[in-house]
């Protein structure tokens, strides 16, 4: 279990999280949604151990995160950062393998890298340098890195938690699909997945549970069908929302922007 | 018999290596080179350092570089049997390495006054196996120096001199007391206006103005490097001194002026002549 209990944190004088509690079970996908500045990334950073909360506690597999070494944390959870970059022109294959601990035998590590690349649709690009990948391809390579690290941790007998901070932000539709599918598959293999998403349609497609954050608190948490409703979302986002359902049960969350009000004029004046 | 024994003892006890006739000599120190040549051993010199520029034959001899950064293997490549080194030659490691390779090193004593130069001459003479000749030369040197300084002491005026070694970071580096420039100024019948500073130090513009030198003394090489002596005289802090206003400056070859070599009496005379031509002539300089 990965759990945050009554976590509070103050950054630069502002209360960013206020007594937030969230638990993540193995095999489930929880999606964090909420407006900008709600505290989603901060909560994810607390869960990953990168931030030490001022109050409350974060436990991973029952152990306090604050007491685990970075190495041990790395085996128990892997993280895809919000804007992953690298300054060095690694070969994609090398980058994907970076998070695999040295305890994993090289042959095994290579297998994990290929599996992770395949899972994110990068199989054909695995021998390219990162500098020659497009932004979306590079992002998926980092996703593959997180997946490879996750499977290495599991191979070393750890439970495995996957934390994704806006994993689909710079991807086109097909690649959004492949990344979410990879996350889903990780959950199916027993990992607990927490993802921060902005796109509520994607959240609905991916999540077992959705947690809605607002001003440093989780204001609603439950199955997508209960949270992704106009009644819950509209007051938090301050936007009118309607829901459309496809015949297969997929739901689209459609914001109703009132754009003309904002004095929209022609983009190009003659 | 006893005399011979004492002689043998002194010979064996003296710190100086006794080599009858070293045939390949490397000299590190311009003054020492001058002495070696003056002792007639110039054709045995196979290497000299940067400061050895006199006599002109030194230009034909292999250059071993800066006296405090000698390359031991470079010196060894000249296959010397004797290295005559200035008191500050180095680095120490290079000296040790030379000794390890079986080269005799004769480190000359430092000369702080012109009178010490005769000691240097004797030292070099002993090192190259020309002790008797050196004894004569040292005696002649002492005589010459006494003769010249006796004449300069009679000069009517005591011009106020300032020696500029170089201009460093925009400030002139002035020769204070304890420098060979100070000694030369004194010997030539002048007064060093910067005697209250110690060694070569930069001096502020106002201190130079209040020191009010009548003549600027420089090394030729440095004056040229700074764009000629006129350039130096037109510097603001110097232009307003008596020296600047009367455009009075003397330049001399650096090794001649400051080297404390055997030419020192001649250098004193030359400086005195440049300072007070008529009076010097009258005094027989």
């Amino acid at each position: 279990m990965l759990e945050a209990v009554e976590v509070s944190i103050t950054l630069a004088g502002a209360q960013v999280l206020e007594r937030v509690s969230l638990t993540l079970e193995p095999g489930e996908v929880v999606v964090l949604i909420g407006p900008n500045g709600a505290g989603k990334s901060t909560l994810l950073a607390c869960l990953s151990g990168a931030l030490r909360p001022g109050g409350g506690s974060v436990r991973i597999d029952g152990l306090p995160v604050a007491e685990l070494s970075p190495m041990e944390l790395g085996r128990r959870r892997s993280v895809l950062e919000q804007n992953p970059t690298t300054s060095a022109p690694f070969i994609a294959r090398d980058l994907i393998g970076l998070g695999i601990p040295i305890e994993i035998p090289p042959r095994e590590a290579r297998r994990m890298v290929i599996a992770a690349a395949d899972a994110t649709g990068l199989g054909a690009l695995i021998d390219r340098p990162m500098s020659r990948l497009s932004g979306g391809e590079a992002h998926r390579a980092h996703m593959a890195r997180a997946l490879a690290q996750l499977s290495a941790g599991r191979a070393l007998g750890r439970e495995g938690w996957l934390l994704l901070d806006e994993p689909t932000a710079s991807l086109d539709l097909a690649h959004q699909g492949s990344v979410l599918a990879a996350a889903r598959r990780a959950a199916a293999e027993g990992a607990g997945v927490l993802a921060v998403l902005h796109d509520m349609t994607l959240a609905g497609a991916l999540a077992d549970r959705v947690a809605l954050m607002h001003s440093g608190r989780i204001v609603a948490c439950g199955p997508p069908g209960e949270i992704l409703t106009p009644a819950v979302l509209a007051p938090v986002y301050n936007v009118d929302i309607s829901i459309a359902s496809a015949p297969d049960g997929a739901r689209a969350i459609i914001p109703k922007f009132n754009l003309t009000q904002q004095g929209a004029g022609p983009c190009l004046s003659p | 018999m006893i005399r011979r024994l004492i002689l043998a003892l002194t010979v064996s006890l003296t710190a100086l290596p006794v080599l009858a006739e070293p045939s390949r000599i490397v000299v590190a120190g311009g003054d020492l080179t001058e002495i070696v040549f003056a002792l007639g051993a110039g054709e045995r010199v196979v290497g000299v350092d940067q400061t050895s520029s006199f006599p002109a034959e030194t230009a034909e001899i292999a250059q071993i570089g800066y006296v405090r950064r000698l390359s031991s293997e470079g010196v060894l490549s000249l296959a010397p049997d004797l290295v005559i080194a200035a008191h500050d030659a180095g680095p120490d490691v290079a000296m040790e390495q030379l000794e390890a390779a079986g080269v005799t090193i004769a480190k000359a004593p430092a000369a702080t006054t012109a009178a010490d130069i005769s000691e240097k001459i004797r030292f070099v003479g002993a090192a190259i196996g020309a002790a008797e000749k050196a004894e004569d030369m040292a005696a002649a040197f002492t005589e010459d120096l006494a003769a010249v300084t006796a004449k300069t002491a009679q000069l009517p005026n005591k011009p106020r001199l300032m020696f500029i070694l170089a201009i460093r970071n925009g400030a002139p580096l002035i020769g204070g007391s304890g420098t060979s420039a100070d000694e030369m100024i004194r010997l030539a019948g002048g007064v060093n206006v910067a005697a209250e500073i110690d060694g070569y130090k930069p001096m502020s513009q106002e201190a130079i103005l209040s020191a009010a030198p009548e003549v600027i003394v420089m090394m030729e090489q440095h004056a040229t490097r700074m764009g000629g002596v006129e350039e130096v005289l037109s510097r603001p802090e110097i232009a307003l001194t008596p020296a600047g206003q009367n455009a009075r400056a003397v330049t001399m070859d650096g090794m001649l002026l400051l080297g404390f070599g055997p030419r020192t009496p001649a250098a004193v005379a030359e400086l005195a002549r440049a300072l007070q031509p008529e009076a010097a002539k009258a005094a027989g300089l």
Partner: protein
Amino acid sequence: MEAALAHNAGWRLPLLGLMALMAGGLALAGLALGPVEIPPGRVIATLMGQGTPVETAIIWQIRLPRILLGVAVGTALALSGASLQGLLRNPLADPGLIGVTGGASLGAVAVIVLGGLVAGSLPAWLLPWLLPLAAFLGAGIVITFVFALARSAGETSVATLILAGVAVNAIAGAAIGAMVYISTDDQLRDLTFWTMGALGGSGWSLVAAASLLTFATAPVLFRQSRALDLFQLGERAAFHAGLDVEGVKRQIAIATALAVGAVTAAAGPIGFIGLVAPHLARLALGPRHVVLLPASVLLGICLVLAADLAVRLAVPPAEPPIGLATSLIGGPFFLWLLIRTRGRTHA
């Protein structure tokens, strides 16, 4: 920057082997070549203990310590340069950037100018060690200070580290300026020559001490190759991947200060090796530190030994300072590298 030659893993080992051969060849050349001509046969005989006293002195007392010091200098500077560039994610980082060389220089210059004041009260055996010790301490103090300054709330900020390094360099430069101001003419020459570096000015004891420190710290840096790879993702991501980011920074800082301090103390500040060697290695073998670090070391050794051979053979029997050679070769070469790679990058 686009890595050129050998992203193909198959090239890595042959290229590393080639570099090792080059370094070995240059070391042999350093043993066999010099102002004094000793035929190879005699060199071997001398190494076996059958040389004439002069040959023995040249090979054992002059050339061998020199080569060993060259290897240590190349290793320390290139390895520290590559590690710091990786750690700071800044291809321009080298031990000079964060002030290590400046600190060492200040220590040495202080001894050259002020050493005479304390020399009388010190035991004689300590005197030859005074300058290297001061240089070593200078490097250590500076890197401790810079890292302490950059550290707040348990994290070391790379930006502060570089800024603190720049500030410390400025302070060290000013203090050296003050030393220059109060120096006598002889001391000025001494310190000017010292700041241009030399491999030939150190005897066995100092060479052995510097080499020992270098080769003792080198494994610490070599062990960081995976950590340095991870640093290329940023510190947060490196932590996510299971890296003790702060611990790695500390280890690299200490190892760098020890190694660079030691070789600077023995050979003076030698420029450009820490910058050029890792750059070349990266160009030839790509960004992975597991090959980048050894390749940097081999290239650093090659550069130092080549520069030393050049100054030894340029104008014998005199010998220009080695820093002159590395800067004269390294500077233009680095410019060429910059211009060449600028044409290729889109950033």
